[in-house]
């Protein structure tokens, strides 16, 4: 089983054989998933569309990239608004500083690059030039999570949320699909202050629709249930819905919360989930240390302690592979959420 193989030893990156085996023997969830598999689209595409809308609407919006424009989907903006697009080259420290200077002069910059590099290499600049300075810079990281795939661990941002979450004044949004990414981008331009938008390269099922609500800092409950709550973000929201379906067939009424804003946290929705369900599993494509699960645990412990499971990457680096293979190998599928749920339910009360 995928879960067992990746829990052993030092992880998939040092044992490619185990990773491949795990992928090929991963449990199938066909027949227990929500009835229709939605069309897929990458959140980076939702972002690319939104900045075009913003470009039309607001002359103060500018976009920066660090030599990744064709990957991060800022290319269309660059073509349409060349005077408001700045490619600073492979310079993730500089891009943050330049964006901060633009923000200090009244612009609304969207500084865009691969998520691990812009948050990792740019962290000191984000801390001082953006957050401490309280400037209106939007930091956009594409290619987040393990689904970045064959490029391997260097390009798979699994620590970015932890890096951004500890910074005062920072807001963090992890859209679950391309439509939500578009809404999140539009909303980001409307709210003052530092903000990190986490995007994926891999197409994700589009599970929200034109009527879905999006408010920064307000989680969305996608499915009601009182036995257990799964709180998920980004690509794991779809897996959470699938897990809820499996659990419901076993009689576990599962609530699914799309926690698209990791900071500021919707404490009310989290505490309600703890009180009303009595057990929580979080699911994210990020290290289990310092990510969304940690953030939820902090709120739960402080307000209403209940048993919790944290599904995520278990303190190890990623590796090359196809997205789906990696999700299986690293224990990030619906079935892994189900296993965690069952463990949590035995500890309930």
């Amino acid at each position: 089983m995928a879960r067992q193989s990746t829990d052993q030893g030092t992880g998939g990156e040092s044992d490619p054989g185990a990773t491949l085996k795990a992928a090929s023997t991963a449990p199938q969830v066909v027949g227990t998933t929500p009835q229709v598999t939605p069309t897929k689209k990458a959140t980076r595409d939702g972002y690319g569309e939104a900045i075009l809308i913003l470009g039309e609407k607001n002359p103060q919006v500018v976009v920066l990239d660090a030599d990744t424009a064709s990957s991060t989907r800022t290319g269309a903006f660059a073509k349409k608004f060349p005077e408001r697009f700045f490619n600073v080259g492979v310079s993730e420290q500089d891009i943050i500083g330049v964006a901060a200077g633009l923000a200090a002069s009244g612009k609304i910059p969207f500084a865009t690059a691969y998520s691990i590099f812009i948050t990792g290499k740019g962290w000191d600049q984000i801390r001082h030039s953006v957050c401490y300075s309280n400037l209106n810079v939007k930091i956009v990281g594409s290619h987040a999570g393990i689904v970045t795939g064959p490029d391997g661990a260097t390009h798979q941002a699994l620590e970015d949320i932890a890096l951004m979450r500890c910074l005062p004044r920072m807001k963090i949004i992890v859209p679950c699909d391309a439509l939500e990414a578009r809404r999140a981008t539009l909303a980001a331009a409307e709210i003052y202050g530092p903000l990190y938008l986490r995007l994926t390269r891999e197409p994700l099922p589009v599970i929200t629709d034109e009527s879905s609500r999006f408010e920064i800092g307000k989680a969305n409950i996608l499915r009601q249930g009182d036995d257990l709550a799964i709180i998920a973000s980004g690509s794991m929201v779809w897996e959470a819905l699938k897990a809820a379906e499996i659990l419901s067939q076993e009689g576990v009424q599962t609530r699914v919360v799309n926690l698209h804003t990791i900071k500021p946290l919707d404490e009310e929705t989290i505490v309600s989930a703890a009180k009303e369900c009595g057990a929580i599993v979080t699911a994210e494509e990020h290290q289990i240390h310092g990510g969304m699960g940690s953030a939820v645990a902090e709120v739960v412990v402080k307000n209403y302690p209940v048993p919790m499971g944290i599904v995520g990457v278990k303190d190890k680096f990623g590796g090359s592979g196809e997205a789906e293979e990696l999700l299986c190998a690293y224990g990030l599928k619906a079935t892994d959420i189900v296993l965690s749920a069952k463990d949590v339910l035995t500890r309930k009360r």
Partner: protein
Amino acid sequence: MNNCKRTDYSGLEKIAKQIRRDIIAMITEAKSGHPGGSLSMTDILAVLYFKQMRHNPKNPQWEERDRFILSKGHACSALYACLARAGYFPPEELLTFRKLHTRLQGHPALDKGLPGIENTSGALGQGLSFACGIALSGRLDKKNYRVYCMLGDGELDEGQVWEAVLTASHYKLDNLCAIVDYNGFQLDGKLDEIKNMAPLTAKWQSFGWQTIEIDGHNYNEIDNAFEQAKKIRGFPTAIIAHTIKGKGVSFIEGDNQWHGKAPTKEQAEKATQELL
């Protein structure tokens, strides 16, 4: 510089002495700070704020103002004193430097709302990128303001500086003028012993900048360099200013133990006497 007409700089010299006395008083009162690198850039600041820059202390957010970005944030006592003497805030506030809840933080903080402060600094290497952003914004808005950015020479060890140097030349930011306070020392010692930066001027030139090399304590040269930089089109300008760390106080000059040390009361009195 020989052919430039002579201007009377005695007024500026007087202001610079006042700023230097303030620096000594602030650091002595705070019992900590960075006298060496503050004193080395004081004359350049005096020329900028009291002659070259278009700015209005009564309207610090004036959109057309020239911007001064301090990248070597540890030398902020000089900037605070300069801003106070220019009229941005009362000089009495200078003695709150580095104290609890002060607007005059140990390293400048934009979020404290001190009038005249344009950027946060202290983490070295970040100012020039920030200045590039302001310069790009000015161009986009078709404003005529100029952006000045003061860097330390030790600070040039930071890789981000060179990322920004490339950005500025790529975007032909001729509204941007960097000044390197080339006093030859960094925290641990002489530049050429810690991390050799020579040939410094050639480095900036090879990165696509126009350069002007001056004596950073000669008012005529400082003033003319800024005048010359204003006329350069299509390139950013770097003024490489040869300075003396601790300039103006005999026992601090050129002695790097004063990089980040406060004078005693007695030493402060002696320094102040020298600066009258």
